[in-house]
């Protein structure tokens, strides 16, 4: 029983060390480390482009929040 467990744990050690190295190799080979400035912009799109904030405090009054928030944002 113990032997089986130690073999499993050893295999786990090799597997997880190995996958990390493999992931690093894959990232380098597929160009993940190139054009980093473009990479940083993948979370933006045409609808939420760079330069647009996407979160404002909900206001107390239901009819005022957007305008108030936009006005506040203009100041910043």
């Amino acid at each position, binding site marked *: 029983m113990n032997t089986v467990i130690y073999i499993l744990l050893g295999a786990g050690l090799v597997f997880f060390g190995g996958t990390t190295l493999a992931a690093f190799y894959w990232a380098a080979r597929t160009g993940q480390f190139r054009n980093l400035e*473009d990479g940083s912009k993948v979370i933006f799109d045409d609808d*939420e482009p760079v*330069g*647009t904030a996407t979160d404002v405090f*909900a206001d107390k009054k239901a009819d005022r929040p957007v305008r108030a928030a936009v006005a506040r944002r203009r100041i910043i």
Partner: protein
Amino acid sequence: MPRPAAPPTAAEDKIERAEIDASTRLPVVLFYGSAIFWLLVGSFFALLASLKMNNPHFLDQWGWLTFGRVRPAHLNAVAYGWASSAAIGTGLWLMARLCRVPLRYSKLVIGAAIFWNLGVLLGTFGILAGDGRSIEWLEFPNYASGMLFVAYGLIAVWGVLMFRFRQPGHVYVSQWYLLAAFLWFPWLYSTANILLNFEPIQGGAQGAVNWWYGHNALGLWFTPIGLATAYYLIPKVLGRPIHSYYLSILGFWTLALFYSWNGMHHLIGGPFPAWMISASVVASIMMFIPVITTAINHHMTVRGNFGALKWSPTLRFTVFGAMCYTLASVQGSFMAIPSLNVITHFTHYTVGHAHLGLYAFFTMIMFGAMYYILPRVVGWEWPSARLIRWHFWLVAIGIGVMVVALTIGGILQGLALLDPGITFMASLDYTKPWLLIRSGSGILLTAGHIVFAVSFCLLLFKVGAKRTEPTLFGTDQGREPEPLNR
């Protein structure tokens, strides 16, 4: 070769994003809802344990409410019930967004949510009933930890499948953190449980396995998820790319390289081979590299826009958490230096450090993430800005007071313990006033959690008038994007 499709328009982007958000609704709400439930349970046990520090006989007529049970019940309820559920909920949503595909295999994650909650429930009852294992961070009895592992295995498989079906393109830094955390944690959890609870290894080595796990749970599970969230939310809320993306990638790979070695610094002075401890101390100092890269990035991205903390609840919580990440990590590296460790070891200073890491850093970032994610997946605005403000100030002041009190109390305790002229019992007297302050801060934190739970329920049951204009749903229609301060 098919011709490349025309780039999507803004309207298409908006629809795609809404579809992805909606696809994560049930799993995210399940994980977040249970997280908040366990946060309240954990806060209750925390308060009890804290009060018992000053009044040891408080409620000790019942065995299940003695310190030896409520303290591990607190730790496990917040670590596995709150923090891990919040981490998984956030991870599911982030993964779907970053892969740019609607959530697939939702049965897999819903099953995981059910198993996870059953596991935490059984485990917490087990601890209270006296079945707890006296191994810090792994107190859950075997019947509970097995269920947690099944749940977690499902999440890990899901993470790999989602990554497999992602849309082509660059893999954003948050995705690296998420995928790593999803893969690392089941391995850590199963290895530590097998070696300590199912087929226990020989005595001395158990301490090493225990702290290898204990530190990695923070370093390779909570930290990557917290950082993945911060690396997504801070740029996204401000509409500004990360200051130096190069540094963020460097930070990820150096974290992967150094963090897993850190656990042995919990055993400084213990009966272990000197090389194990030394290697760990060196790795703890090397953690300055990933920590400083992250600190520079987060600070420089927000710099010039700190006013944004006034209007964005998400940003307020997230930036607070990101700053505390730097603080907790730098403190942790210093605590690993043996000459300082000799004072802080076995004192309340360590407890303060743990709360700085798991609460001021991780929990605050999770609150920030929930404020961003929930309105988008539920399709309903947070009902009250006042509740959000109360939540923030209660927990921010609460955790600040707690960390300061435990730090001062811990140093006094450590110095007293080192003084041969002071008896052990007398050394405890130094901590009493600080522990009382800590209990007070615990009341503030619990009050903040109750406010948040109320806010969450109001949102979930869509209380209040329907808002006609989205306030948290991105750009306001028809408005030109304005450049923020550069």
